[in-house]
């Protein structure tokens, strides 16, 4: 059975107008869509940022990122309740394109499912949970001992917006 699996990484850009600005990893969101059968949406995010990280945030951005999970969980619930199945990541990436809290363009991964109907949901939960864990670990590993990461050339919000629009 073939379905669609996408994920976006979520990061705080201290200044989205500068290419060399500080980027702080915050979380990962993923969705799996099997048309007419199943839809799953998952989020993992940091519950708080350190004081060292918060000093990079403007007063305007602080309420948004002081408790990142709280804000993102609200976005998650809203997307779950109101958006079409399979549309959450694209929508959130687009609506946060000019936000300090940036969603990367949803990346598609190969996804094959062999589980039977009786264990389908458990299997999907496990897959999306594993993906969130792995991607979050990778995201944080870029920061090593400090979660504040050096600017990544591939994660320029403006470029990603263009990619998203083109897609």
């Amino acid at each position, binding site marked *: 059975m073939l379905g669609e699996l996408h994920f976006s990484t979520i990061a705080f850009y201290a200044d989205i107008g500068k290419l060399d600005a500080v980027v702080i990893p915050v*979380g990962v969101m993923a969705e799996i869509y099997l048309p007419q059968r*199943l*839809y*799953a*949406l*998952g*989020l*993992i*995010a*940091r*519950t*708080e940022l350190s004081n060292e990280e918060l000093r990079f945030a403007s007063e305007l951005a602080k309420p948004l990122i002081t408790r990142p*999970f709280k804000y993102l*969980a609200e976005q*998650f619930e809203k997307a*779950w309740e109101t958006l079409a199945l399979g549309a959450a990541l694209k929508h959130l990436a687009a609506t946060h394109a000019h936000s300090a809290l940036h969603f990367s363009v949803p990346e598609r991964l190969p996804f094959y499912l062999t589980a039977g109907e009786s264990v389908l*949901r*458990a299997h*999907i*939960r*496990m897959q*999306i*949970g*594993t993906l*969130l*864990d792995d991607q*979050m*670990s990778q995201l*944080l*590993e870029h920061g*090593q*001992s*400090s*979660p504040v990461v050096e600017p990544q050339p591939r994660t320029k919000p403006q470029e990603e917006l263009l990619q998203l629009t083109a897609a």
Partner: protein
Amino acid sequence: MTPAEASSLLSIREFLQLCRAVDARYGRMKKVTSKLPTQFEVLEVRQQGHAYKEALVETTTPDGVRHRNAFTWSNLRVMPKRLPPTSGLGIPAEAIIDCS
């Protein structure tokens, strides 16, 4: 529970995650003091219900200082919708998964 027994209660994946978490927490010390690795030993593994696993770990940094910390996991396979906070990644994080 001996360290060997405790380690045997972790899957390979959980053990690798623990390595990452210890490194994330003590990596800075490893870099500035010497090239000797930070060592750690799993003292105890506790399972709380079906959805929560915790490992008590003693870490020895290259300068000989010992630290004891509890690292936690959420078993996403059997979890309820919202997971308890985890420090398994080295920093506090929470997760939600919805499935319909």
